[in-house]
């Protein structure tokens, strides 16, 4: 490299460093200076320091943008009037009886109005209600739900109208941290939604693993690609979770296909047949083909795109994101092929559901008191017959992997953890059904 050119490039990098530095290094600079405290916050800090109560979280807060902007303890921990009843009614361990440990998004909204409103219109906001509406939630130990140890630990993101700290960890509440895929990792991992594993081991994820530490995380997402031609190694070279799922930093996270990859509007007649079988398996549709009340709870209008137009607009937005780097026809065909994967999976899934339903209809499987005399996929693992457990695994573990693997461009998940396993599940369900019928004879 010629010295002159190196000098120029160094200058460009320095310039970008300074630009990013404006936001990112602010807190470190300010930390040295005395953090200004309101009288109320000062009282909190002094008491907590003297008594040694969660003193480390005070340090976290001192490093936050909140501290710089003089947003202290009281702005968050004294719930505003319209905070959710659960928070207002909660007891407090603090001497000041108006203080609450849990913070309501209504407090956050006073400053972050756009983000809180966007969040409310996204899928994350539904997480708690969906959990509560599941037919078997009541059968779980409550420590797993209300106690936030199991299901509740992730689904809390929608609790009390939203938990911002699910992504912006306490007490730093860093936007830069929440932009990194690790922020999504603790929930979007494993079992029925291994998005983290899929992403981090895809080509996109490999690039992130190798280069990610150099990228400018302090920059707003909306500004990431505003200078697409600038030769800079600190502009993200591969998408991370938010590139596609929170474009422009929009907190209303949702996708065309939704969580289960079940769209209501379907032009393809064959596919509609498969999907209706799955809808029936989930209790979303009755035998006459009418949508049930349960459907409205789990796929509410407005939160989930139900019309063909809504689906298409989501897809168009996604293609627009892909084409920042890829050619249009490549992006389109890649996503189209992923749609095809869903169709192939739905075909296997529908066949498996029909087999198990057939066993109920012919009285091969004895009726269980607790649930309807047909497949109920929403009961998850709370079923009595081994063949139903198999059906659950096929639906919630393997079908999810096959379809999400296809969209996250991870061949291993699509093929080996998804498709191959579904094929084996179906074979095993067929064999078990045969054996059950033979035993009955």
């Amino acid at each position: 490299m010629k010295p002159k050119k190196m000098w120029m490039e160094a200058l460009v990098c320095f310039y970008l460093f300074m630009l990013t530095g404006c936001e990112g290094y602010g807190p470190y600079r300010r930390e040295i200076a005395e953090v200004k405290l309101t009288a109320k916050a000062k009282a909190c800090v002094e008491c907590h320091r003297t008594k040694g109560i969660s003193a480390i979280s005070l340090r976290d807060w001192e490093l936050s943008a909140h501290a710089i902007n003089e947003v202290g303890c009281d702005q968050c921990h004294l719930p505003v009037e319209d905070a959710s009843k659960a928070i207002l009614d909660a007891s407090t361990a603090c001497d000041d009886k108006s203080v609450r440990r849990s913070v309501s998004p209504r407090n956050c909204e006073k400053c972050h109005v756009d983000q809180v409103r966007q969040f409310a219109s996204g899928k994350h906001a539904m997480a708690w209600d969906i959990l509560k509406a599941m037919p078997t939630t009541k059968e779980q130990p409550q420590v797993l739900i209300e106690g936030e140890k199991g299901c509740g630990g992730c689904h809390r993101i929608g609790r009390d109208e939203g938990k911002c700290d699910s992504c912006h960890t306490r007490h730093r509440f860093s936007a830069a941290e929440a932009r990194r895929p690790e922020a999504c990792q603790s929930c979007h991992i494993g079992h029925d939604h291994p998005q983290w594993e899929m992403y981090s081991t895809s080509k996109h994820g490999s690039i992130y693993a190798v280069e990610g530490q150099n990228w400018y995380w302090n920059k707003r997402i909306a500004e990431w690609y505003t200078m697409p031609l600038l030769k800079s190694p600190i502009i993200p070279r591969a998408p991370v979770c938010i590139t596609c799922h929170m474009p422009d930093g929009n907190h209303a996270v949702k996708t065309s296909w939704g969580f289960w990859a079940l769209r209501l509007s379907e032009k393809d007649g064959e596919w509609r047949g498969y999907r209706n079988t799955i809808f029936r398996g989930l209790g979303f549709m009755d035998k006459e083909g009418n949508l049930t009340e349960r459907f409205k709870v789990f796929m509410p209008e407005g939160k989930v795109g139900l019309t063909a137009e809504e689906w298409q607009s989501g897809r168009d937005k996604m293609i627009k994101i892909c084409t920042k780097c890829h050619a249009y026809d490549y992006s389109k065909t890649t996503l189209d092929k992923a749609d095809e994967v869903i169709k192939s999976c739905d075909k296997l899934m529908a066949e498996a559901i029909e087999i198990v339903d057939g066993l109920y209809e012919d009285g091969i499987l004895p009726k269980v008191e607790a649930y309807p005399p047909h497949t109920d996929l929403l009961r998850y693992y709370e079923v009595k017959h081994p063949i139903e457990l198999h059906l659950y695994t096929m639906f919630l573990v393997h079908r999810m992997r096959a379809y999400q693997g296809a969209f996250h461009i991870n061949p291993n998940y699509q093929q080996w953890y998804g498709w191959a396993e579904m094929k084996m599940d179906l074979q095993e369900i067929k064999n078990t059904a045969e054996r059950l019928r033979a035993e009955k004879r």
Partner: protein
Amino acid sequence: MLLTSKNYFRGIWLLLLIIVAGCAETKALRESYYTPETEKCINCHSKKGISKSAVRDWKLSLHAAKKIGCNECHIPIEAASEILATASACTDKNVRRTVSPKNCLTSKCHLEQGKQFDKSKHARAWNVVVDMAKSHELTGGEQGCEGCHRIGKDEEKCDSCHTRHRFSTAWARRPETCEMCHRGAEHSETEMYMNSKHGSVYRLESHTWNWFRKTEEWYGGPFEAWSKSPRTAVCVTCHMHNGNHAIASSWGILAVPLVLVDGDEEWFGYRKTILKGLGVLDEKGKPTGRQDIIDAGILSELPRVEWLEQREEMVRICTQCHTKTYVTEKFKNADNIMKASDALMAEAVSIVEDLYNSKVLSQKRPFPAHGDILRFYEVDTPIEQMLYRMLFSQRMRNFQGIYHIVPEYQQWYGWKEMKIELEKIRSEAEKLRSEKQ
């Protein structure tokens, strides 16, 4: 008042912004790597907003520094007939989205790497899918089998490892490059490596290593106290020694070479039984018509001398850090475990074969006359599924776990699972026989 520290800093930002913005995109800088053809492409792509970020990636590449622009790759040369036959979405109808390796492998550029690659197992990856497609319902295009096996499509796909449009050699040297394909179900090499002692050292120290250095220079001066030289082995250390793109190993992917290892006839017998299960040998031990599979690289049919050569080469690599007695002993132990696991596998194959011979299982497929593990999961009975899992998941983990020095994979995901699976196969066979009576 104007010179409060806040305003002072803002002033500096502003000044820098003006200076740098002036310099950054000046003609002088642009001309250093734009050829006129490339400039034409970039102007059009930025005006229409088509895959602009790819252009930025390219600017960061060595290609840009050497003035290898869009046209050198995206206008196929005459020899690239299969790419020339495809349609173009560009206004310039000479342009193709897919790049033919023929463009990369000219004598001016990467001919040597191309020649090496052609000898590698990677070059045969695509044939395997084509063959499998005859018996399997494959889905997903590049999201499915094709996503990994594309590395051998149209002869070879360089961007499987050297990601577009930076095509960095430094990044391709890192194990994350191999991760997308070499993980999971059948070949969890990445999980094994990352959890081995080699991998631990990699995870802790690798950010300080100089990845821009050629692999052959990594261990050049053994007494050189240069901390930037990798302290441990990564994938390329052993599998692409000296940057050689002809990736091969003595055992091949399924570890069933048709060679006598260490004069051990008993072990060779087990391997022959496994090869029968794979439909490569017939009941009399003669090769079947499945030569295409062998050619496709699923099975390595290396003559013994080559097997030994590969092993000796590996021993040489290990001895850069370890003593020869240690390395030889490790390989001896590994070979012993392989033999023990092949004994289990051969027993399982024989059990299923016997079920076919005694008509407990009926033949539903045309080929071969007994079970066929190469059908993978596309089988009719649970016992054949068990056999498939035992060979392709558990035996693979046992085998690869030994050579990647990960006791956990070898023992708990491999050996133990094989033992359990064999027991399941035994009792399922008994059940099938009693049902038949």
